[in-house]
């Protein structure tokens, strides 16, 4: 029992540190010259803002690399060298000019954290599903209109950020992401809230602001662990009774919808501390009722 605990603790520690570079433990090299001249293993490379149009030559020789930051360069495509870095755990390709992620991305099976935010990515390969160790996937501010079906295979995924894209649906397989804690779908083109999403039983943060969602399914009752729901700037005319039974919900934003009344019984929102209702045509009497029903909650209207 004790041994199991220790192993579990060690495992947690490992995951905590593996996803971030630690310059105090191992050097983070800032140039190929210094990396290639290094005596020991080169595990961390930071090439931010280096004006790169191509991956640096010799990159694939750094087989021990587990952290690579290429943020803020001019990369239009990812060359094959990158996908030979089989030990890579953290890859940041944020703020480049990438139009797609290649199939070989699926070779980086040790990836824990992939940040491809702020590109022009319109296409993701199905091989993304090979990245079964992935915990963090950041794809915000791209031009993605669909996620690959295989994403459901990334069963360790805890954070999925795909805000500010062109998504109007999520693939069927998405419901397999049972560990998902944070889902950011804001600033997309969703018209519907798919009941399948409610399969994310561990979800704590749901951000759907700035879409075109008209209604929420009753199945939101499955979000037993949800703490934060950002549902503002949609086209909601109301919310289901099930939403107001989520005991762990602490912050609910329904601002800038078309809601006139909330469900009658709000007593289930025992954990709610902040309710944002600004920008809705809610009558004064209803506001008063809501405030009276939620004495421990700050209501903004």
């Amino acid at each position, binding site marked *: 029992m004790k041994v199991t605990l220790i192993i579990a603790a060690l495992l947690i520690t490992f*995951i905590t540190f593996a996803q*971030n*570079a630690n310059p105090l433990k191992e050097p983070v090299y800032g140039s190929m010259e210094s990396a290639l001249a290094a005596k020991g293993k080169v595990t961390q490379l930071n090439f931010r803002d280096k*004006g790169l149009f191509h991956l640096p030559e010799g990159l694939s020789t750094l087989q021990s690399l587990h952290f690579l*930051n290429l943020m803020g360069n001019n990369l239009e495509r990812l060359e094959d060298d990158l996908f030979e870095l089989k030990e890579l755990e953290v890859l940041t390709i944020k703020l480049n000019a990438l139009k797609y992620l290649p199939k070989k991305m699926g070779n980086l099976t040790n990836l824990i954290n992939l940040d491809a935010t702020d590109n022009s990515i319109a296409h993701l390969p199905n091989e993304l599903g090979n990245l079964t160790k992935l915990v*963090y996937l950041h794809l915000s501010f791209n031009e993605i209109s669909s996620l690959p079906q295989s994403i459901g295979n990334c069963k360790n995924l805890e954070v999925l950020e795909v805000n500010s894209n062109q998504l109007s649906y999520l693939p069927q397989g998405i419901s397999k992401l049972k560990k998902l804690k944070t889902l950011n779908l804001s600033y997309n083109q969703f018209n519907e809230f798919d009941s399948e999403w409610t399969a994310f039983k561990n979800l704590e943060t749901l951000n759907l602001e700035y879409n075109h969602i008209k209604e929420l399914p009753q199945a939101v009752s499955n979000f037993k662990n949800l*703490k934060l729901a950002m549902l503002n700037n949609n086209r909601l005319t109301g919310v289901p009774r099930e939403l107001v039974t989520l005991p762990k919900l*602490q*912050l609910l934003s329904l601002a800038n919808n078309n809601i006139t009344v909330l469900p009658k019984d709000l007593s289930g929102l025992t954990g709610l501390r902040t309710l944002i209702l600004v920008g809705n045509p809610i009558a004064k009497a209803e506001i008063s009722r809501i405030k009276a029903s939620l004495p421990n909650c*700050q209501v903004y209207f």
Partner: protein
Amino acid sequence: MKKSLLSLSLLFSMWSFAVVISGDMPLLKSATTVPNVAPTAKKAKVQAKKAALHTAAKANTAALTLDPTSYPLAKDSQWSYKDDGTSLDGTNWKSVAYSNTAWATGYAPLGYGDSQNTQISYGPDAGNKYITYYFSKDINVNLADLTDFVDFGIKRDDGAVVYVNGVEVFRDNMPTGAFNYLTTSTGIVDGADENRYFVHQVAKTFFTQGVNRIAVEMHNRDGQSSDIKFDMFVQNEATGNLVVDCEENHVGCFTSINPTAQTPNLIIPQEHRFQLMFKEGSNFTIGTGTVPGNHDFTGYHPADGSSTVGRLAVNHENNPGGVSIVNLHLNTDQSLWMMDSSQAVDIYNEALVTTNRNCSGGITPWHTAITAEEATAAGDANGDGYDDVGWLVEIDPITAMVKDYGNGQEKLWAMGRMNHENVVVNNEGTRAYYGEDGGTHCVYKFVPTVANNLTSGNVYVLKMDLPLANDEPSSTTATWVQVPNTTQVERNTLNAIAGLLGGTNFNGVEDCEISPLDGKVYFTSKGKNRVYRFTDNGTTVSNFETFVGGMSYPIETATGTVTEPWGDGNDNITFDDKGNMWLLQDGGKNYIWVVRPDHQQSNPHILLHSSMPAGSEPTGLTFTPDHKYGFFSVQHPDGGNAPQLDATGNQVNFNASAVVVFSLAENLGVNAPMADFAANEVTVDAGQTVTFTDLSTNTPTSWSWTFEGGTPATSTEENPTVTYATAGTYNVSLTATNAIGASEPAEKIDYIIVEATTGLDGVTGLDNVSIYPNPTQGNVTVQINEEAGQDVSVEVLDFLGRSVYTTTATSTGASQKIELNLEGLMGDQVFFIRLNVGDKSGSYKLIKN
């Protein structure tokens, strides 16, 4: 009776007007309408749509007599107005005697079509709007309080004619000559100019003691115009108390560089010098590893208030991000900064997880460093309930550790998670201002529960009372809206909530600072290319205005005045003790600008300090407490930049991120020598030698002497010896040189006086005889340069001509030395040496003491 009195008063006004004219005094100084961007016709495109949407709603149509307000007249004041399309041509509507009590009243800005405090009417037909609208207001004036000229700042869309007590004092964007209520404005006002105040100066003589009527008629460009807008302030002209005194040397007193695109070098003013230090890739002295790149905020933390011993906290805008602490001191002998130690702060442990893209930051009044994490990627790796990045983090620069407030090391959760850029805390530790670059782009205020403690307190977001229009404020007021920040969820989501609660989006808030002169809060908007400022009144804000930006400015350089666009990318700002605002630009041409405290958009006063090396931006300027030294960083320069000399006298290359310390040249590094010298004797006899000693400062490495009348005539020795053969007075000059450069020549006029030798027989044919030392204490060398093989006799005669010493020799050629020992001769005396070589002879005076 009443009528005649009025006529008299009008007559008096006219008379005083005439008197001033005849007195040859400029009544209206040329109107300083600086924002003179040429109007365009693009407004026409949207006008029809706007007009169609217009509802002609009026905020306040109730007739009300306004009490006279006291001078000065503030922006956004209350005015009486008439917007019913009636012509007041030929009436006395401008004079105090006219009753405007039937007019509507409302707070400025007044108008329609854009954001206004008071909507006025354009009439029943959107396609044929009224041309002229009338505004008036009484102000109480004590003439003794007025400056000779008074500033009228008018926001006019489109044309205006302004009267004081019935007399026209200026017109703006209106044709000259006669006009009537159907006369349209000269030009179209649009874009940012719709919200700018154009300042005109009006002579004090237009005012009378007591109540004065200010009257304005606004004329539209045409009957189809989409908008009209009016506001005006009246105040004393700037008195000059904000003028920076450059009589004494100050780091803010320099000559602007010439505008330039980036070059492979750092370019700074001719009066300044820089020293490069803490370059990316160099080794930390404590712990392993090398200095990471992308240096950002560069905060100088004095040791016990010292301006010569302290620490730098340098942010690294990277992933992994980081903060380095550099202990350093000024070597006062060399006037160079020396790094004593350097190390990375541990922000990578289990409690803190990581840090990412550490942008700007701040220095607290209680001497800690705050680093701002710009990255906000979601994720809570250690399961503490807070997302891992997107926070302000407080560091003790002495221990180089993140603060522990009693629960282990923590970030400043209560201030909220966002794309943090910077923070400034007031001296009392009771308010902190910060902004977001990304997300909802708002300006925030944190009010700590306990002063000097940022772990707990309330957060407020700034909400403009009227929205910005074309990046210019539509009015001067704003409100602080409280943002919930109690729970972890609220703190993780603070920026989004602030946006929903009405926080104004300023499109890239890069820095907030507090001016030491006026206590106002200044902040940069990168996307709006401006620095705004405001007075914080607690729950509300007033005096909100554009301080600088959004236009071009005249820059006075060494070669003349040039006009340079402000450009985009307003980034970090800092104030020096004179109130100069130093602005670092990430964009445009990546300059550092200096804005004088007396700068006004209508009367600019801006200097161009420096141009960054190619590929780089300047980041994070702070000063030593004495404001002699400024520290900033050069972030991500190109690898191919060219070497240049820094204050160490060495070639340095901005081919990687580095810290720069700069100062007036006199305070930093080795200077070129100041040449000086002295001679061991300035009065000698012909034929004697003089030894010169170099007294130049700043360690010269080469010398260039000229000796008029001397042999040699020039020398490159440090301390040369020179012989003067001929009587006369001679100049000496020295130029000394070191690695930095050559001194100005030090020239001493008539410095060496060579007297004719007083001898019994004079000198006949003997050249280059040296007798030294002279004066002597006994031993004397007689040096001759005569052909070998001749008989030489030396005879020493006393004052009375008696022979007291003789010796003989045979000449041996050049530099023959004959030693005399006169120690046995009594007392201080003057002797004469008679020298015979072959058939040549000479007599020389010798002093013994």
